[in-house]
């Protein structure tokens, strides 16, 4: 027996397989692939577990190694293609660096960095120097690769998934950059959870204390090393609670 995580395939097929009596519900995305994590069976046998590798594609000028504005589409595509060829199982695309002291990025800016890259990767299957060539085979493989979008903004997440991403990767675990948590964090949380549910995508939730550019105050963690875990746990707990709000 294995625990499995399915990744839906986006963009949705245009003639979204009109499912007769299911027309009253939003279209359900087909499955692209799924990851499988064998768990120990009752007989105690444990199958080897595959490690899945993520290639990180930083569509951010301040993340690129040379720190300059080489975040162009050809660079991004070259990176994605080589990562997939090297065995990456998923490409993580982010437009807002969360490294310490990183600059603020507006939603519009993040949009324009991330969405075109996702679209370009999904469009790769028709690129290449000709059918049967190595580069064409690589492009087809890259075009079908899993993509996660590294963002804490629900608008970016939603649009990126519609453009072809299969997964949302959020360093703030849905509550946004505000820290400590406020009512805005709760609103942020509900919105992001809604997007994830409506799109039926898996999510990666990470714990972070406040905005990337802020001078982070770690003092309240000094006495409890596991606070971070606890905070994250409660977010995971809440993100799984109920689906009722997904009614259209």
């Amino acid at each position, binding site marked *: *027996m*294995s*625990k*499995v*995580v*399915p990744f*839906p395939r986006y963009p949705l097929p245009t003639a979204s397989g009109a*499912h*007769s*009596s*299911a027309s*009253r*519900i*939003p279209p*359900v*995305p*087909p*499955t692209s692939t*799924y990851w*499988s994590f064998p*768990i120990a*069976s*009752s007989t105690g046998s444990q199958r080897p577990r595959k490690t899945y590798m993520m290639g990180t594609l930083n569509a951010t000028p301040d993340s690129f190694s040379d720190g300059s504005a080489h975040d162009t589409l050809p660079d991004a595509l070259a990176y994605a293609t080589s990562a997939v060829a090297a065995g990456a199982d998923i490409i993580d695309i982010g437009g807002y660096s969360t490294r310490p002291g990183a600059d603020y990025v507006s939603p519009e800016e993040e949009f324009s960095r991330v969405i075109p890259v996702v679209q370009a990767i999904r469009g790769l299957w028709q690129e290449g120097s000709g059918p049967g060539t190595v580069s064409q085979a690589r492009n087809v493989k890259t075009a079908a690769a899993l993509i996660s979008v590294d963002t804490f903004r629900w608008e970016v997440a939603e649009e990126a998934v519609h453009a072809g991403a299969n997964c949302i990767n959020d360093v703030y675990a849905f*509550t946004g950059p505000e820290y*400590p*948590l*406020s*009512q805005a*964090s*709760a*609103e942020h*949380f*509900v919105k992001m959870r809604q997007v994830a549910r409506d799109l*039926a995508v898996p999510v990666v939730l990470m714990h972070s204390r406040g905005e990337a550019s802020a001078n982070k105050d770690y003092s309240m963690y000094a006495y409890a090393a596991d606070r971070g875990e*606890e*905070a994250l*746990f*409660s*977010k995971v*707990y*809440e993100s*799984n*609670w*109920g*689906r*009722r*709000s*997904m*009614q259209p």
Partner: protein
Amino acid sequence: MNFSQVSTPGDNTTTHSADLRDLIRVKNLSLTVSFTDGSRWPSNQPAVQPVVITLAIAHDLRQTAQTDDLSHSINYSGIVSSIRKAIDGTSFPSVEALADLVCESCLTLHSHIQDIFVRISRPKALLYACAAGIELSRHRIGKAPPEETFFIEGLECHAIVGVNPCEREERQRVRFNIWLTRGTSRKSPFDFRNLTRKIVDNIQVSTYLTLEALASSVARVVLLYTAADSDRVTVKAAKPNALILAESAEVEVIRTLKDYQPVPTDSDGSPSTTVSPASSPFPSSKDDTKPSGNSSEDRDTRTTEPAPSTLTALLATLPRNSKTDSPTSYPHKATIALGANIGDRFANIERALRLIESPGADLQQGNGVPKVVIVDTSFMYETSPMYITDQPKFINCACMVDTSLEPRELLTFLKDIENAVGRVSTFRNGPRAIDLDILTFDSAILDTRPESERGTLDNLAGQLVIPHPRIAERERNAETFKRVRGAKLSSALLI
């Protein structure tokens, strides 16, 4: 002083002298004794038969230990000879009479002995069991202790018990150890044979799904037989064939007659239904509006989950979405298993989950609020199909729902969803686009099949049996359940 090392869980021997901790023990002394109450079968002639006697004598051994001189201790071979002498040539009407005589002769002939515990087992006393006997203790000063324990050990017979299909068809060996602790009385000998017959008759016609239910019913037979409120019975039930690498799977129950007080039936008048939201195994959701006064219990259950975090508190302050968070009351909680093994299995499951929350629980014309809302979902698991192996693998998961539907309505609704998602009715365990089963419904126990047809699991189509009889046959369910928050299903269901 604790005699229970030589005894059994059923033994209730209590401390007589708090300062005495030392024991001398004669373990499993084998003798042959004549009884007038027969052995495996009743008999009018005295029947000589084996007995196994264990004695434990409380005695301060410190002086003997210090001086290494036996004269300060009790000579156990002397005790054995005095017992042999006392019983020689006597025919006993019962094991109690033998036990009394053994105690008496030890206390009379050995003035050092203050406290004695005796366990006498008769290996050939019963046709269906390995042994029957008594455990009691006596104190030199004062009256007989108020309680003694009768036991029947290794009672074996064959019964239908278990949830696996093969277990519903073939009887399997079940083994019981029974201890009955009751006030000392010598009015009439304890009738082991008659009691054992009643127990065996009861077991052989039983068709329980769980060993727990079987053990409890055996305890009930014993208590009804002796019919005394103060009697206490311990039943240990074992299924030797349940676990391949273990000697047996066992349950142990301790009961008194009070545990079998009649339970009030459900308000709808159907006696076979016991819907009791107050004892639902699941915690209530936080905005549960059900009127029953069990909110404190719900809170308690919830607090065993992660403590309400700042986030949880903040989420509670958000304005409700009037359309989706309507104050509809969902009085019931159910768990639903979802499984798919053809087509796009994940999409089938997602589609079913969405349809479950259809407005008005109606796939065609429904409007208004959903009558079933999903409050939690499990992880998904991929498993090989059971019983039929040349089939695609299953994806399985479970969800917890709040609902205003009654069990049969929920079943009908789920069947509609199965059809909508594209289930083609095939042979049982065959491929299916989606398979939805109600695993639990509050704490209800339901079976819509006629009483005479409940012995099999081959007639479940269109019927409703809750908890789902196949709940335990699937490793995946057990695993899935563990991961559905708050699913405090009794392990009873998972054996």
